[in-house]
């Protein structure tokens, strides 16, 4: 369960962005979680709940977008989207596929509230 340390990194990003934009509150965060990122969305949510108290994201809404695995096949040029761990090309069956999406864990969007105009 390393989600708490991931959420700690996320709050470091939130605080840095809020400071850079002169914001007083973070109201929403969109997190893209790759199926193969090694992070579990439910655990990220619980860690977020636990961590946000007393921070400038105390009332923030966390939106998690799960990104499926996308494979590119060098043999036939096809691409395959997978929800499971069958890493083969759906067109030609090749296993020499390259994972092009679904491994990342990124803060994608942040909604900030600033005082004044």
């Amino acid at each position: 369960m390393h989600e708490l340390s991931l959420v700690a990194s996320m709050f470091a990003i939130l605080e840095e962005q809020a400071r850079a934009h002169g914001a007083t509150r973070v109201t929403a965060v969109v997190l893209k979680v790759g199926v193969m990122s090694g992070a579990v969305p439910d655990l990220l949510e619980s860690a977020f709940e636990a961590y946000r108290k007393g921070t400038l994201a105390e009332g923030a809404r966390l939106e998690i977008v799960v990104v499926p695995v996308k494979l590119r096949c060098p043999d036939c040029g096809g691409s395959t989207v997978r929800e499971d761990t069958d890493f083969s090309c759906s067109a030609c069956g090749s296993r020499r596929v390259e994972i092009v999406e679904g491994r990342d864990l990124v803060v994608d969007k942040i909604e900030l509230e600033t005082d004044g105009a």
Partner: protein
Amino acid sequence: MTVKTLTVVHDLLATNKQAAAAIRGELRGRGILAVNLLSSPGSGKTTLLEALADRFRGRFRLAVIEGDIETERDAERIRAKGVPAWQITTGGACHLEARMIGKVLAGIPADIDFLFIENVGNLVCPASYDLGEQVRLVLLSSPEGDDKPAKYPQAFLSADALVLTKADLLPYLPFDPARASAEARAIKPALRVFTVSALRGEGLDELAAWLVDALERLRSGHA
């Protein structure tokens, strides 16, 4: 009051990746091959390191970083083999991070050949953290069952080699090494597989030779 939506696209593991890249650069400069060992608790990481220490004695110099949640026990076992060992107790954290390795790196002798990093026993979390290693081994012991690769694909996908440990127990268990390696290779076709008994010594020569080969490639600039 104004509400702004920013598109930031900030990788949550970026800080770790940067620290890992710096470590990899430093170790490459010193000609040291770093090997990160991933596995469940009790799959025989420390026993494998003890066996490799015996095998390499007089030929190569080793150092070991032990990642453990609480105790200093594994480091003591390694030191008993005459190998310098550093213990990182994570105090509850389920994985090692590159920064933790960076902190002990300065104290590690410059004239070693291999730096083994025994990660915290856990097949999930350590897979997500690059420690600046050149080689990642995933261990799977025969008592654990041969269906682990499909359950923990990330660990097997991120590894360079699979070490099937406790081969001496194979006659007593339903574990099928061929099935375990086929399952792991379905996830990563290029994965090297070694079947090893650290207790009896089988398979250790092959694994040691593969590690020496990786060290030579690093030093000749081809890794």
